[in-house]
């Protein structure tokens, strides 16, 4: 039977239909993946963008001598006896004065008005006074943090309805806050401190920041980079270029591939046993964290480095050897530079993986409440030996806090972490585009 070439026969139709179906499935799969990403991003951004803004109150604080330095001699050791608990009423009075100056009247008790100011504010003022004792007796302007609930009101997290049910604030307090904001005394502005300040306790979510976590993550990445890159590259060069192909190298190769698939928490157990219990490095220190993450990242770096070395054509090596170069010269002068973009990409991907890792850090004590900025080096605790946390750990910590304001903080930390990962991946892509050679 003759058929027209233009009219498809049954079999062709069936094949075309199958192809169309497959394309539809593939498209649907992409849509699902994109939707999942979109939902994730909207939820994180929706919850977290507000953490980059913070409400401050501009207060003129009178620093009475009879409260802060009874002796009047400005002796720091005596003045430091007045704790932040003693500074709180001074701030409360300043806020009461501000209310009176603006003509805002309220039935709220003085204690409840005091609670509109963050507990962190007392520490801010105290540190300033101790740093400059001459301020005592004067009236000084401070930009102090508003409490978490008040801050939440300006971000839409706390409403009049929820405040009525809330034991920690009241609609009256929110009305005062609104009046102060209208008068320009209270202002919600961009919050650099979120990236600078250390973690804060459950009572002051408004003061919690990522400072310690970012430093800790940075230190760990330095340790990982300095250890994993040379060890990883040296072992891949040896395995790929110099090692004889026998059962032993096969065994090593299989083991490296297996190590890459080992759950990360196992490295945490290993780190606890070796680095903390046996070698007696400090707990919670970025050094131990970095070492553990190095072990975790090594297989990734070795595998990607070997792939990069493999992709350099043998003709390059043959040409180098042909003109009389030694094996080492051919590797270091020709193969390694050509493989460098691939190695760097692999390293950055490995680092990004290490940056987002929480599980192994749980076991070495990095999932902790740390407020002191870790120093890179101190004679007592050595290199990277001071306690710190890390970015993903901070997310984990904050999601466990009872104050709802920490939800926003946690999402903000996730956004920060994502931005770091995005930057690292962008660098990897750039390096690959820029230096990649094709044959």
């Amino acid at each position, binding site marked *: 039977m003759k058929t027209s070439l233009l009219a498809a026969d049954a079999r062709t139709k069936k094949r075309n239909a199958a192809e169309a179906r497959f394309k539809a499935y593939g498209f649907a799969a992409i849509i699902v993946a994109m939707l999942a990403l979109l939902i994730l991003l909207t939820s994180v951004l929706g919850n977290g963008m507000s953490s980059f803004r913070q409400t401050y109150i501009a207060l003129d604080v009178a620093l009475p001598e009879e409260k802060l330095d009874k002796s009047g001699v400005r002796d720091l050791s005596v003045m430091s006896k007045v704790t*932040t608990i003693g500074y709180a009423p001074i701030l409360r009075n300043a806020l009461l004065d501000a209310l009176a100056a603006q003509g805002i009247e309220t039935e709220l008790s003085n204690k409840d008005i005091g609670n509109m100011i963050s507990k962190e504010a007392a520490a801010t003022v105290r540190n300033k006074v101790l740093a400059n004792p001459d301020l005592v007796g004067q009236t000084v302007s401070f930009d102090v943090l508003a409490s978490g609930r008040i801050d939440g009101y300006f971000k839409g997290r706390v409403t009049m309805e929820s405040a009525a049910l809330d034991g920690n604030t009241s609609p009256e307090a929110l009305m005062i806050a609104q009046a102060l904001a209208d008068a320009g005394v209270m202002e919600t502005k961009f919050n650099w401190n979120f990236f600078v300040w250390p973690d804060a306790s459950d009572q002051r979510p408004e003061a919690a920041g990522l400072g310690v976590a970012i430093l800790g993550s940075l230190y760990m990445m330095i340790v990982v980079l300095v250890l994993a890159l040379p060890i990883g590259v040296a072992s891949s060069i040896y395995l790929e270029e110099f090692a004889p192909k026998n059962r032993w190298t096969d065994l090593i190769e299989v083991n490296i591939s297996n190590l890459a698939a080992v759950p990360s928490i196992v490295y945490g157990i290993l780190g606890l046993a070796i680095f903390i219990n046996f070698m007696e490095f400090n707990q919670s220190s970025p050094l131990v964290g970095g070492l553990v993450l190095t072990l975790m990242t090594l297989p990734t770096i070795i595998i990607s480095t070997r792939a990069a070395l493999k992709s350099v054509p043998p003709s390059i090596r043959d040409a180098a050897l042909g003109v009389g170069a030694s094996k080492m010269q051919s590797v270091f002068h020709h193969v390694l530079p050509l493989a460098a973009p691939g190695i760097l990409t692999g390293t950055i991907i490995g680092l990004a993986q290490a940056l987002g890792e929480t599980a192994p850090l749980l076991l070495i004590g990095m999932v902790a409440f740390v407020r002191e900025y870790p120093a890179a080096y101190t004679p007592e605790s050595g290199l990277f030996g001071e306690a710190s946390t890390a970015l993903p750990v901070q997310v984990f910590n904050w999601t466990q806090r009872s104050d709802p304001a920490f939800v926003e903080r946690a999402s903000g930390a996730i956004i920060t972490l994502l931005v770091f990962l995005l930057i690292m991946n962008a660098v990897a892509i750039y390096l690959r585009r820029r230096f990649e050679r094709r044959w």
Partner: protein
Amino acid sequence: MSIMKLTATTAAIALMTTAAAARDNVQVAGSSTVLPYAAIVAEVFGENFDFPTPVVESGGSSAGLKRFCEGVGENTIDIANASRAIKSSEVEACAAAGVTDIIEVRIGYDGIVFASDINGNAFAFTPEDWYKALANEHFIDGALVPNTFTSWNEVNADFPDQPIQAFIPGTKHGTREVFEEKVILAGCEEGGFFQAMLDAGVDEDTAEGKCMAIRTDGRSVDIDGDYTETLARIEADTNGIGVFGLAFYENNTDKLQVATMSDVVPTTDSIAAGDYPVSRPLYFYIKAAHIGVIPGVKEFAEFFVSDDIAGPDGPLAEYGLVSDPELAKVQDTVSGEVVMGSGS
């Protein structure tokens, strides 16, 4: 061979740091219930004293005490937080590792409350209601029969017709133990079920075990995470009733309503007075050998139990801790470094 040199140098530096590993900050680990309190104190301690802010880890009472008992030395923790008293087996483990002098400090009491969605039905429970609702098997007419209750009005005719759905702490939490003992077992005894089992010839341990066995048909869900997870489950299923710490509830009063237990509303006052039945003491344990070695250990402990902090008007009480009526005695224990077992 610059790469090799670099590797060798870094390895050398890493090894050098081992030689000098001393620490100047207090390290605390343990109960996740005590964590927020310890963090609050650490924060205020750090900003008011010349010592660095202590590092506070969570991980659970048992894990904390285990690390506490690893030995004496700078790479072990100084203070363990616990939501229960240390067990004699743990004291022995400590002694075996050289940790012989332990100071026990009770910081106050923690209430365990039952809360449900703010827009749902209000409940006034008794322990017996919870036993009836959650027991795996009921002892009826001399035999154990599986629990078939599916709605709260079957448990107690006064309750609304709301499906039974409870979110209780998982077995790794110290809170679970308190829940089983002070609610389920107490309910079993109050309702006379325990006595009935004994009368039927069941031995005491078995009867206790049967009383505390929680049903596993999905009406009661173990939450292994923290209270934020319980809250999320209740927000998703508004029929659910969850077990929370008092402090968590007080921070989320706009989302949760609390149920009374034996007609007592849980507040720091009713718990301090001993009227509210479901509460437990919170502790921390100090390694006496570290006092004077690690700077700030004793100062931190003294500050923790001072009237300004742990007293009824302090920040801990504000956050939800029921302050200890015998705080002065606790302060003496800390300042006198009275170790456990010294007959005080």
